[in-house]
């Protein structure tokens, strides 16, 4: 990626980061659409031998053989038996029955996590710079599980099975499949086994935001990653015939000067179609007679944004203005459209529409401004980023963290153009796309960096370091914003906050977790012996005499659920144990809350550590007096600090 290293404080080069010899021994397994091995991001110059721990291989298949792997891309496998069993044999003329990535998504996520340095990267001149992954010294193993027709759980499980055997250290999974109990969810089950082997599993939270309860991958042994913006934008203005200008974004590159600089006739798609959903610019719905030679305004939704542009182009349109609706609000996602086009937010689109509907001869033009950096405020939580509360286990706060996931430049497949459309004949080495798919590998790579710096840390300790050092306010002290509302975001939107890798390298204290802790958590969920056995691959008997509580899981965040319809005082107690991973010191607790009717006490509120790996426990008690409206939420934060380190935990309180 370009820009995100600087945005995250990693700098242009690795010199700003400690690079121990073990950094090159960290292996990131990426379950996705495969890999385009010719990408310069997989250059292995300067890499030592493949780590001796590596058990994987480079499988051959369509347009792919073992020589496609090297000391950077050390493994590549594909899994299609489940896919073929359901949908029939793979059409090898359309997609490679091999690890080769014909889609681009897998190459994008893999290079985001751990791509090598590539100077002079850009997409059609946009987002220029030196591209690199978050852990440029780490090795990559690609596991292709997603095909044209989707990603099937039998294939995903097979890939996780192999990745565990292959000895990856981090698993990056930018995919999801709804919301079901952990013992029915293949990703959760495979992730449990991976966690047991010391593998950190980073998954995307999903793109179903800003609706509440829209998360996927919410098991506590998974690191669940939401998405935020960068301080980078790609402005492209709409200039109307009435002299007014409206800001938008675009990645269109006008090589042929097809966009006239003069004002051009402008029409609303809904008025250029006989179809009921003509406003959406679906295939075959626009009237060429009405569209030809004009700029067309299309509403966002249903079909792909870039396909709307292709539909306008096919109908003879000269350009497109893509209008956000209430579902997207002011969130602008830039696309490499096939014709001059820009995306505008809902407020601007409403004003533009009123001009279109009131002016007898509306005209417009689009002005492309290229790449702009330093945009503030940033980051803001992306509207599409899935949100809590956690619908499977309300007492575990999810997502865990947010990372860059909007307009991310990273490596791309040579088999497909930047829009992914079949008619897009352009080929690019890098593409700019958005999603929690993009934020997930940022965290995967950062986790690999931490693993390289602290090989002895468990997956839970690495996640804890990333979470407790995440930030929730801008440098000016204002709280992180949510683009969906324009207001401060909450822990249900950003989890612990935005990742800050430099601070995560030296977190001071961590909340560690063992396999037994997770087994006790399953007991607290009242899982049956059979359900635990399905999930954990072992017979584990919950002690009937023991009182298990989800609140006792040593998680670095707090999701407190109160009974809403009661006049008595609600009391919730949480126990936590912190492990010192820094120098000796004394930490003091500070609690902030936006709800004064909830009394929050920490006991003890001072913890002294004399040596590394020393553990200390504390209890947090939340006392809510009186009733509160059902579905009300309040938020707060607990911080432990020794004056040098700040170990922060988000608090979400809900009345159900």
């Amino acid at each position, binding site marked *: 990626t370009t820009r995100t290293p600087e945005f995250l404080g990693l700098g242009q080069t690795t010199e700003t980061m400690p690079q121990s010899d073990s950094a090159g021994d960290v292996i990131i397994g990426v379950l996705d659409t495969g890999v385009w091995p010719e990408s310069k991001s997989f250059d292995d110059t300067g890499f030592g031998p493949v780590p001796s721990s590596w058990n994987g291989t480079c499988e051959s298949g369509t347009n792919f053989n073992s020589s496609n792997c090297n000391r950077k891309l050390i493994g590549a496998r594909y899994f299609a038996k489940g896919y073929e069993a359901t949908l029939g044999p793979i059409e090898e003329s359309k997609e490679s029955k091999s690890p080769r990535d014909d889609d681009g998504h897998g190459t994008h996520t893999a290079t985001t996590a751990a791509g090598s340095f590539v100077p002079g990267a850009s997409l059609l001149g946009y987002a220029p710079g030196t591209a690199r992954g978050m852990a440029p010294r780490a090795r990559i193993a690609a596991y292709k599980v997603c095909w044209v027709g989707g990603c099937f759980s039998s294939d995903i499980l097979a890939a996780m099975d192999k990745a565990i055997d292959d000895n990856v250290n981090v698993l990056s999974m930018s995919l999801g499949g709804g919301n079901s109990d952990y013992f029915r969810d293949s990703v959760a089950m495979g992730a449990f086994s991976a966690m047991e082997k010391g593998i950190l599993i980073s998954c995307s939270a999903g793109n179903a935001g800003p609706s509440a309860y829209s998360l996927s991958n919410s098991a506590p042994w998974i690191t669940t990653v939401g998405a935020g913006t960068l301080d980078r934008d790609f402005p492209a203005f709409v200039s109307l015939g009435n002299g007014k200008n409206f800001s938008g974004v675009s990645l269109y590159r006008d090589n042929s000067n097809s966009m006239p600089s003069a004002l051009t006739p402008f029409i609303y798609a809904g008025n250029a179609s006989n179809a009921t959903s003509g406003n959406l610019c679906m295939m075959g719905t626009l009237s060429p007679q009405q569209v030809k030679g004009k700029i067309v305004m299309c509403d966002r939704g249903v079909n792909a944004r870039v396909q709307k542009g292709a539909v306008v182009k096919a109908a003879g349109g000269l350009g497109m203005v893509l209008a956000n609706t209430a579902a997207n609000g002011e969130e602008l996602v830039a696309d490499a459209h096939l014709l001059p086009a820009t995306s505008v937010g809902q407020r601007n689109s409403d004003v533009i529409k009123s001009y279109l509907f009131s002016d007898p001869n509306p005209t417009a033009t689009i002005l492309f401004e290229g790449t702009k950096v330093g945009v503030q405020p940033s980051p803001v939580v992306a509207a599409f980023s899935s949100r809590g509360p956690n619908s499977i286990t309300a007492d575990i706060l999810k997502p865990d963290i947010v990372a860059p996931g909007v307009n991310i430049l990273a490596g791309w497949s040579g088999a497909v153009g930047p829009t992914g459309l079949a008619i897009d004949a352009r080929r690019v080495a890098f593409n700019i796309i958005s999603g929690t798919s993009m934020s997930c590998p940022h965290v995967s790579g950062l986790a690999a960096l931490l693993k390289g710096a602290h090989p002895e840390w468990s997956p839970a300790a690495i996640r804890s370091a990333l979470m407790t050092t995440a930030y929730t306010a801008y440098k000016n002290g204002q709280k992180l914003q949510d683009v969906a509302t324009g207001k401060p975001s909450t822990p249900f939107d950003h989890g612990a906050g935005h990742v800050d890798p430099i601070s995560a390298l030296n977190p001071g204290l961590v909340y560690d977790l063992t396999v037994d802790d997770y087994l006790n958590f399953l007991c607290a969920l009242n899982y049956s012996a059979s359900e635990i056995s*399905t999930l954990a691959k072992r017979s584990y008997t919950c002690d009937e005499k023991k009182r298990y509580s989800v609140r006792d899981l040593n998680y670095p965040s707090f999701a407190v659920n109160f009974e809403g319809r009661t006049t008595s005082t609600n009391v919730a107690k949480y126990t936590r144990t912190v492990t010192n991973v820094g120098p000796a010191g004394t930490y003091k607790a500070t609690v902030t809350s936006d709800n004064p009717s909830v009394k929050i006490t920490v006991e003890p509120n001072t913890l002294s550590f004399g040596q590394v790996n020393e553990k200390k426990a504390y209890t947090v008690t939340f006392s809510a007096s009186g009733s509160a409206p059902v579905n009300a939420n309040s938020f707060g934060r607990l911080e432990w600090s020794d004056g040098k380190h700040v170990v922060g935990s988000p608090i979400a309180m809900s009345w159900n």
Partner: protein
Amino acid sequence: NTDVSHPKTTPSTYIVHMAKSQMPASFEHHTHWYDSSLKSVSDSAEMLYTYTSAIHGFSTRLTPEQAASLSSQPGVLSVLPELKYELH
């Protein structure tokens, strides 16, 4: 009913979770036990994958009736239908 698309007769993929610790001593290897369990409900069904590290079990194509029958076999913890996941 000769409708081949009838859901009761149309096979689909299932992931079968096995309690490996309950494998009878008569089996030398867990894959033989998995195969024997599968053959008890279908002569023709074959395993797509056997899983050893992520889960204990296998995936296969079964009719809903066969899946229900398999789920009641000794050592079978659950028989879950395949799910389609999507990229984010």
